[in-house]
């Protein structure tokens, strides 16, 4: 019998309705409560679980006590296996991490967690990519790509996973915004890592062909295209992400998945560079930037790759920006343009136009950037 883990962050989302932009930290939670905020997480988790009740007898649900999963699971008619212990009222990140570790250790097929970016980070810190996970979006901040687009769709995805209709997985970004800075009106998003989530392939019509090629294959094809067209006269700034990773792997170079690396003549100059270091290397030199939209929102610059700052972009020049993305990733934006948030209005405006995006080997599309 398959096993599904469930962790609910009961306080996730409480800051949202009262305009607090998040609930990271005890003081903010107190403030949210004072402002009359009600817990959101359980209600939304219920929407997910309700989509799974028809499979109730086909899998075992493992969860943490009380508000962290037990209560809502029982309310939805499940008889979950409850492990661990929490202090009855206020749970913290430590509880989430503890629960993730313990549930993951029971070799669950999938760990479902309800929360926001902060919760995703906690899950990432606890289990990295050891277990397949899926986020139920209940938090205020949802920058990460590890969440279902809504709680109900999350339930459907888990159902397909349980029925063996979805077998493939992919790595998805865990992003988080610095809440303090966000409250003062400044968005500073960081790419923390990758969690493994179920990969729902889009089926095309039967008979005509099979389903779309998998993400990994498309990423490899993109890398081959980039490498074939590399000009040894240019520095290449390689942005973070799984889409750019195969470029470094195929060149057999050391690299950082989350940082910015620099190469010249297909050799690593230095990895994990800061904005300042990039500028030191490239000022006055011919340079190209290879970037991919980060997370589920389509940000090209300013989220998760702030090292490639407006100063760097200015130095490199708009025409030397190479954008890479799989078609799957572009289609998941539902027609929304790519976004930039460099903190420099002039650069944002400069970049806002139609651009060529490399989507495969000898395969490009024209897409729009906005801000």
């Amino acid at each position: 019998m398959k096993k599904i883990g469930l962790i609910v962050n009961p306080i996730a989302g409480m800051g949202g309705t009262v305009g607090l932009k998040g609930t990271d930290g005890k003081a903010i939670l107190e403030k949210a409560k004072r402002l009359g905020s009600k817990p959101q997480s359980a209600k939304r988790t219920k929407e997910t679980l309700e989509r799974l009740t028809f499979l109730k007898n086909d899998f075992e649900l493992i969860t943490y006590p009380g508000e962290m999963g037990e209560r809502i699971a029982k309310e939805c008619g499940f008889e979950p296996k409850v492990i661990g212990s929490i202090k009855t009222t206020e749970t913290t990140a430590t509880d989430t991490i503890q629960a993730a570790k313990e549930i993951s250790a029971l070799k669950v097929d999938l760990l479902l967690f309800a929360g926001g970016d902060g919760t995703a980070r906690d899950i990432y810190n606890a289990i990295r990519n050891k277990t397949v996970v899926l986020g139920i979006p209940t938090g205020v901040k949802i920058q990460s790509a590890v969440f279902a687009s809504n709680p109900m769709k999350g339930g459907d995805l888990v159902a397909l996973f349980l029925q063996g209709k979805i077998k493939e997985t992919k790595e998805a970004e865990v992003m988080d915004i610095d809440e303090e800075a966000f409250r003062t009106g400044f968005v500073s998003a960081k790419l923390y890592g990758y969690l493994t989530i179920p990969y729902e392939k889009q089926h095309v019509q039967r008979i005509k062909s099979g389903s779309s090629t998998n993400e990994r294959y498309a990423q490899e094809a993109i890398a081959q295209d980039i490498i074939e067209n590399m000009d040894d006269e240019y520095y290449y700034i390689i942005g973070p992400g799984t889409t750019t990773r195969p470029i470094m792997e195929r060149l057999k170079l050391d690299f950082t998945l989350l940082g910015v690396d620099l190469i010249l003549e297909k050799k690593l100059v230095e990895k994990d560079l800061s904005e300042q270091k990039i500028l030191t290397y490239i000022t006055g030199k011919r340079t190209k930037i290879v970037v991919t939209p980060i997370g589920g929102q389509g940000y090209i610059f300013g989220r998760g790759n702030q090292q490639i700052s407006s100063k760097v972009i200015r130095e490199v020049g708009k025409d030397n920006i190479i954008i890479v993305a799989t078609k799957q990733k572009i289609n998941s934006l539902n027609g929304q343009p790519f976004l930039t948030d460099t903190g420099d209005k002039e650069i944002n405006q400069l970049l806002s136009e139609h651009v060529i995006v490399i989507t495969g080997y000898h395969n490009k599309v024209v897409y729009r950037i906005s801000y």
Partner: protein
Amino acid sequence: MTKNTKVKNFHQAKWDEPIIFELSTKGERGILFPEIEKEIEAIVGDGFSKLPKQMIRKQAPQLPELAQKQVLKHYLRISQQTLGADLNVDIGQGTCTMKYSPKINERFAGSPKFTALHPAQDESTVQGILEIIYKLDLFLREISGLDKFTFQPGGGGQAIFAMVSIIEAYHATNNEGEQRDEIISTMFSHPSDAAAPTVKGYKVINIYPNEDGLPDIEALKKAVSKRTAALLITNPEDTGIFNPKIKEFTDMVHKVGGLCGYDQANANGLLGITRAKEAGFDMCFFNLHKTFSSPHGCGGPATGALGVKEEISDFLPVPLVEFDGKKYYFNYDLPKSIGKVRAFYGAVPAILKAYSWIMSLGSEGLKEVSRIAVLNNNYLLKKVLEIPGASAPYAKGRHRIEQVRYSWEDLYNDTGVTTEDITYRMVDFGFHMWSSHHPFIVPQPFTLEPTEAYSKAEMDEYLAGLRRVVKEAHENPELVKSAPHRSVVHKIDHEPLDNPAKWAITWRAYLKKNKK
């Protein structure tokens, strides 16, 4: 019929019929041929010894061995397990232009006067069929405004491939073959417009639609350059939205030295209304098995009739059928020709049927076909939008041409029922519906194309089917999700299609891959 039209209480035959290779019994025969009599052998030989040695196979082919009755039973059973165009209201397979194929045209194609013809006959003995081929060329010239057609390509995909071959030859002749290595298409054009150039070694740039569902002229500006070999585009695209700026597109591509190819596989809303020539195209093709009523034949005898402007007609495949004022003849004298793309002259039965169809309608009749197809489509659009959960993304409130790509996204959000679920449930009522071509830019897509062949009553019947399934999706989603309940097979497993170790397109490959 009215809004309350009841759906059919349909139930399909289910025979659990194996495939014919599995029915084979060693030694079983349909016909036992008599031995050749000595007297005959003395005159014509034994029939084998004159064959070149290298052509004689050492092992007999592993064909299924069955008696006549077994073959008949097998195919009759299979025929009961289909939902053919003549059997259902086939408007759910948008982009494919399912229409009635008049049976009189089948009679023509089945006549011994036609079937006894051989492609190797001297042209003086086949003037009749050459006249038909030549005149169909003239008709399509009038319909497109272009100057010369070939019927060699065996379908739309091959017509696109032939277009790309012409594009390649054209630029090579101008010594720009190396430089022009990019072909531009759009996301809502048929995927083959990007696939064929890829196979030919071109780099492909695809343009995403804007908020109106159309490719943006600004986006095209970004895509064109000295490297542009051609633009291959559909209009209206699969959304059914006509791009009114198409002339600006072709102008922009011509300006940088590229050619423009018009994918008119489906031209059902445009006959006598707009033409490839006036839109600035150098080439176009029509699928005779779509717009021109020849049956689809399940990927069988089809034709992608490919037409070009005078300036590039030298590149067409040979032979072309010409008329010198007295007789019809094959013209092989095209030194720049891309060569042959298919044996002989194309699927001639499809040519004959399309010719007959056009002759029976005349020019005013063809225009009427398009007018009715557009009217039917816009009736259906209005009615589908009244169904809760259905929507038509892009171009809100505007009319569409001959088809619409709809979305069940709202229904999915409300009920969890997907397009795929609905297609399976529609089968329970004897209706065909498909989710349509990739890419999946439109969420939960479905594409309806009523053509001119269906009456209002039939469209209402189909709509009643949709309404019924949507009602079920709200009241009992599990019923829809577990469909079909009254069809041949339950669910199709997509997985082997993604797995090269499993898929097999021949029996031999199947045996090999499954180690039998």
